[in-house]
């Protein structure tokens, strides 16, 4: 039986009872309880089933290291699997359920695995399930998948929100135990900006349970005053319920604050993720007690000695009436006192050490507790609950000396410093023989940006395991506690345990890894600690080996006959304890999952039935749907209207990068394949930009604004990338050139006015001479158009008479409206990106991303004319001179027309006779863009074809799927207005 005691409990508030359910059963706890203490208080020791053998499992620990008590918590949009009962605070109405069993926790068919345990040792699946071949996917794997996994998968969208925040400090203290508080006080008094993060809701850590005095006061009092002192200092921030999840390079610390897990639905964000830059990190993260490996050490009722004491002292919960304590060190004796003080029975203390003599041992004897020296537990009796233990000589092979009846076993295999934060960024460890633990090696710390030590471990996290040591290590005041005798490095009980016992002695509870598994791994040559881990899955459960790793590698070292440090540890990876994906994502979800960029006319588009297409972070209207129209109808209408009357395109998304300075011309000559330095002021030039490998990466119209400034238009999706590309060259290669760049994309709204009525429309707005003579093709002018300051570029991407007009973004919407009003009788109508695409294809203009894909050079696209022959160099020039690039055998741009006028499917390839050496069909080209042209009333396409331009008129076969072939003829890529008369008006 586990039950609530009638008195005591330093963390619970008996005046505030709270109701909750477990597997539908209504239970009661108190404010201040964790789910685990509340369950234990309600006599619920059995809380789950293990991963592999589905063995019944109970609560083992009282903190983050808990491997068994993982529950499903909440319902619907607040359901969460795998929630640790030991670190989750109880709240009114909490709805909890155990996991990994069917049909029920008490009766789980999966337990057949347990009866077959002998057939399922570590790695058995690597040796079996190979025949017949198809059986793995269709039979074995589905069965394994179903029996593995822990909690149910959530179904609903998360009902909570999450927040992220930044912070900066000189010293970040991880852990609010006595070491952390002492270190924080010291740093704060030295004037440093200090942040102290503590993962639990309480300050002081273990010390109030373990006792002693600091600075002459009982620890609880010292903690209280230390916290008060810190709270009073303006240079200190204290945050509890906030765990340091990871230490990353350059002092970047991730804090995970569980803001509202204990008050769900109160409107606050559930979690807050802190990204902290810290000058120095103090790891005061304490230590975690290790279990001992003996047969049946996983039967519910076997717990860590420290946890037993925590439940009694903190929560007034008795894990059992009659407890046997088993230990290899003095600390566990404290558990005996806590139990007896609470009026419970300690049946015996089984001490593996041949002789135990420390202060605490003496005291135990003095209080009449039965202490058995040199003894171990041969096996635990009971299945769903401990009923007793069989005692044996630790030095022997497990012959039973005596049975002791009990319903709880409190075990202690010693303590392991929490070295995770020390190790995340490469801090090294040393093996401390005397204390039987790995602790930080102060001579090999993780280092910061200047090579300086970045993390300092203090207190138990640094291997200082007694209160006086802890305070001394953390720079705190003197402390006093009973002197402790030395620990014995005992891992397995009894020392000579035979197979039958080792096959039941668990190291990793959740993953069901036993002593025998690690020994098997060693026997089979998986001798590196990483191999053992992966072969046996030791330490890969949700506690990430917090309980099992050291014991496992001690067993491995023993099997290999080598000292523990020679075996070494596995790598400590963030996060210290699992953190929610919700917190990692923060507020960025749904509409604002990525920043949404809107042009000044965005809302208008939405109101006019825009069918959106994402382009980079922008959304652009693909077309504007009118009632009753399909997408295709709308696109065709927009094209016809633009070709016959006048269309408006919101071109604000086009990248606009200002390049300015005495060396700007020289710089642009390197950026573009064209000569930009000689472009006269007032003129526009279509420019191509290649990467170092010579491939075309962007295109756009470059405008000479003045003697020392150019405006470079880029593709909508490319603006940021191209700006970064420019800066990369300027900052890394040509840092001494006098050039400045500014991305002005969002400073301007840009409207393309396109079609035979375009000039008339501009003239109606009035204010500028936009005649053929005053503003010829590829020139621009500045002025006031319709009362708005504007730059008018005479450029065209459709072949029609066309102007692109840039106005200040703030005037964009008003300007757009003016066009609509003035153009009503000229047939003005907006068009979207798809109409833009079709019209440019009709005219044979290439589109970056369609005709190019990172493998295409300008020469392939018949754009040789845009490559200056006069320049000594430009980015990509040298690459384009390589033999394959200069070869006439490349695939080159052509137009394609199906013989029957149909539209070629997207992305089809032209087959060539025969197969290549790898048995693949030979190919000789592919379609890059393909559309139905409403203007020509037939399908048109562009493609890249082997020596294409020299093969005009040839018919190619385009296989579609396995048995269909579409035939198309190679034609000139300019389908519409070949002479260019439309624009030349």
């Amino acid at each position, binding site marked *: 039986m586990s039950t609530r005691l009638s008195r005591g409990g330093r963390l619970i508030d008996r005046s505030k009872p709270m109701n909750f359910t477990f597997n539908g059963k209504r239970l009661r706890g108190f404010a201040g309880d964790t789910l685990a203490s509340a369950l234990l208080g309600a006599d619920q020791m059995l809380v789950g089933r293990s991963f592999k053998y589905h063995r019944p499992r109970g609560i083992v620990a009282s903190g983050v290291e808990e491997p068994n008590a993982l529950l499903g918590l909440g319902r619907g949009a607040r359901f969460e*699997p*795998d929630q640790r009962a030991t670190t989750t605070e109880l709240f009114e109405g909490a709805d909890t359920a155990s996991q990994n069993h069917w049909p029920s926790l008490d009766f789980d068919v999966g337990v057949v695995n347990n009866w077959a345990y*002998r*057939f399922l*040792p570590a790695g*058995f699946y*690597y*040796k*079996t*399930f190979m025949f017949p*071949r198809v059986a793995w*996917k269709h039979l074995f794997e589905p069965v394994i*998948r179903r029996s*593995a996994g*822990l*909690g*149910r*998968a*959530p179904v609903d969208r*998360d009902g*909570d929100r999450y927040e992220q925040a930044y912070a900066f400090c000189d010293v970040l203290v991880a852990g609010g135990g006595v070491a952390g508080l002492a270190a924080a006080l010291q740093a704060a008094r030295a004037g440093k900006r200090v942040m102290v993060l503590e993962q639990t809701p309480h300050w002081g850590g273990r010390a109030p349970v373990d006792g002693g005095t600091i600075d002459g006061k009982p620890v609880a009092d010292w903690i209280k005053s230390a916290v008060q002192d810190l709270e009073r200092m303006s240079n200190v921030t204290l945050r509890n319920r906030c765990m340091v999840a*990871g230490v990353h390079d350059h002092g970047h610390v991730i804090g995970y604050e569980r803001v509202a897990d204990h008050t769900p639905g109160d409107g606050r964000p559930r979690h807050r993720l802190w990204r902290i830059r810290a000058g120095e990190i103090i790891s005061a993260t304490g230590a975690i007690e290790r279990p001992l490996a003996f047969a049946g050490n996983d039967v519910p009722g076997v717990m860590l000695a420290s946890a037993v004491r925590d439940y009694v002292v903190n929560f007034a919960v008795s894990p059992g009436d009659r407890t046997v304590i088993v230990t290899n060190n003095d600390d566990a004796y404290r558990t005996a006192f806590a139990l007896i003080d609470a009026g419970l029975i300690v049946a015996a203390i089984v001490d593996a050490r041949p002789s135990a003599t420390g202060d605490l041992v003496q005291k135990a004897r003095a209080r009449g507790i039965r202490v058995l020296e040199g003894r171990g537990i041969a096996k635990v009796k009971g299945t769903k609950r401990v009923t007793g233990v069989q005692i044996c000589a630790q030095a022997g092979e497990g012959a039973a000396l005596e049975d002791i009846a009990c319903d709880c076993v409190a075990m202690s295999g010693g303590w392991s410093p929490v070295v995770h934060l020390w190790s995340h960024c490469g801090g090294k460890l040393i093996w401390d023989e005397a204390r039987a633990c790995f602790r930080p090696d102060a001579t090999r710390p993780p280092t910061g940006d200047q090579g300086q030590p970045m993390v300092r471990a203090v207190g138990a996290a640094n291997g200082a395991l007694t209160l006086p040591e802890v305070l001394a290590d953390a720079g705190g005041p003197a402390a006093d506690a009973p002197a402790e005798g030395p620990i014995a490095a005992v891992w397995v009980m009894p020392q000579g345990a035979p197979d039958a016992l080792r096959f039941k002695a668990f190291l990793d509870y959740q993953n069901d890894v036993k002593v025998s598994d690690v020994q098997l791994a060693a*026997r*089979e*040559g*998986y001798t590196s600690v*990483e191999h053992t881990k992966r*072969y046996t899955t030791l330490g890969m459960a*949700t506690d*990430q080996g917090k309980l099992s790793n050291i014991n496992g590698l001690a067993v491995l070292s023993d099997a290999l006959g080598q000292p523990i440090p020679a075996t070494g540890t596995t790598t400590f*990876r963030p996060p210290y304890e*699992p953190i*929610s994906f919700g917190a990692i*994502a923060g507020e*960025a*979800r*749904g*509409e604002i*999952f990525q920043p949404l960029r809107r042009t000044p006319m965005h809302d208008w588009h939405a109101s006019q039935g825009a069918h959106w*297409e*994402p*382009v980079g972070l922008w959304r652009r209207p693909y077309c504007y749907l009118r009632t009753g129209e399909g997408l295709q109808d709308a696109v065709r209408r927009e094209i016809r209207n633009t070709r016959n009357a006048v269309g408006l395109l919101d071109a604000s998304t086009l990248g606009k990068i200002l390049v300015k300075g005495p060396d700007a011309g020289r710089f642009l000559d390197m950026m573009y394949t064209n000569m930009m330095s000689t472009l006269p002021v007032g003129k526009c030039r279509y420019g191509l930009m290649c990467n170092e490998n010579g491939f075309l*990466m962007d295109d756009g119209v470059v405008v000479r604004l003045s003697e020392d400034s150019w405006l470079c238009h880029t*593709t909508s999706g490319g603006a940021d*990338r191209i700006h970064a590309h420019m800066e990369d060259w300027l900052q890394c290669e040509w840092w001494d050139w006098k050039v400045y760049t500014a991305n002005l994309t969002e400073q301007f709204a840009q409207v393309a006015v396109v079609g035979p009525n375009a000039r008339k429309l501009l003239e109606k707005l009035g204010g500028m001479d936009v005649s053929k003579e005053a503003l010829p093709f590829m020139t621009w002018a500045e002025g006031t158009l319709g009362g708005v300051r504007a730059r008018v570029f005479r450029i065209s991407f459709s072949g029609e008479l066309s102007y692109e007009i840039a106005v200040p973004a703030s005037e964009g919407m008003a300007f757009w409206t003016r066009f609509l009003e003035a153009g009503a009788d000229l047939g003005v109508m907006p068009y979207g*990106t798809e109409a833009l*695409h079709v019209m440019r294809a009709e005219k044979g203009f290439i589109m970056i*991303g*369609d005709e*190019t894909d990172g*493998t295409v050079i300008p020469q392939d696209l018949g754009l040789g004319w845009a490559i200056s022959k006069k320049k000594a160099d430009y980015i990509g020039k040298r690459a384009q001179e*390589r033999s*394959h*690039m200069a070869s006439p055998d490349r695939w080159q741009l052509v137009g394609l027309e199906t013989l029957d006028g149909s539209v070629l499917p*997207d992305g089809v390839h032209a087959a060539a006779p025969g197969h290549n050496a*790898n048995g*693949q069909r030979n*190919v000789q080209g*592919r379609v890059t863009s393909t559309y139905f042209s409403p203007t020509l009333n037939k399908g048109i396409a562009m493609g890249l074809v082997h020596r294409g331009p020299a093969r005009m008129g040839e018919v190619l076969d385009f296989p579609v*799927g396995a048995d269909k072939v579409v035939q198309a003829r190679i034609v000139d890529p300019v389908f519409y207005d070949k002479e260019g008369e439309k624009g030349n008006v």
Partner: protein
Amino acid sequence: MAQRRYSLFAVAREAMRFHSGWERAWTSPEPKKRYDVIVVGAGGHGLATAYYLGKNHGIRNIAVIEKGWLGGGNTGRNTTIIRSNYLQDPSAALYEKARALYEDLSQDLNYNVMFSPRGLLMLAQTEHEVRGYKRTVHANTLQGVETEWIDAKRVKDLVPIINIDGPRYPVLGALYQARGGTARHDAVAWGYARACSAMGMDIIQQCEVTGIRTANGRVQGIDTTKGAIDCGKLAIVVAGHSSVLAEMAGFRLPIESMALQALVSEPIKPCMDVVVMANTVHGYMSQSDKGEMVIGGGTDGFNNYTQRGSWQHIEETVRALIETFPMISRLKMLRQWGGIVDMTGDRSPILSTTPVENIFVNCGWGTGGFKAIPGSGWAMADLVARGQPGPLAADFGLNRFREGRFIDESVAAGVAH
């Protein structure tokens, strides 16, 4: 050395005696004075190279030299996705060869590598991607790689937990390879290692190569932390450390090394039976047999060797996946890690002769070489044995950089206006 076969019966027999009779999966010998071939790097590619040298070419006097523990590089750190839906012919040929070998690898190695052709989807979330993936399907058809274009509804049927109509990037369809999937990464390395050992090859772990000895433009041997070893031929298969080894031999490689990260959630019951890659938002996810959601994202934008990556990538990846699979928001990240990936200028691997006679390199697998291990080993063995590339490796030589004959898979690098 005769090795006992693994089977259900063997396990049953051993169960009777508490598994005390299992022998070592691979031996742990001291290096000999000389080998016909030394393979540096006991990752998947190195081990597979040795295996196929033995199996296909009868060369067995081989040492595989590993500075750490075998399989401990990227082979043991990746997200185990296997697919062959590549665009360019040479890539499709190589990756499809690998995928096809994976189908029978467990039987071939007598080690269950858990190849699980559970199906793989690459989501199209922009019109541009739709066109790109349709193009891939057409290319794959001609290449003999089975892929298909599926619409959003079919995507939803295959992946019930997916959100196909998110407000920003609704799913428009997907490129689907029904026989793409995953395998158990460690088992691939272990299975090859065991099979190599059974052929009498020496796998020498904890032995770092510190120098390469050449004379008259020809390899003589290597220096290691366990002493000097001579060799007839040398295969350098060390992924992120390729440039370091090349420098020892006196030549340079067009490789950059960067951190790529991955992470897993806590295990939950099966909820997704396929692999989903979402390239627009940039993240991918599958569910391991243990129940963990296995997640990967992008590489860091700078070079390093620390096997740790920048945190912001974790955030970006997780955001992308919550958008795609809203139900994961309440799962927790269990573990994150990084590996150093070897990136070439065209993001395709190098299988090549080198300026030094009898030295061969296999590297540049970057973010995606797990899927290639059997095919790469096959082609590399051929290259090493014959001294010149066969058809699978022919296009992946170092000379392609000089000639500009790239095998660029980065179709998604383009953008729409």
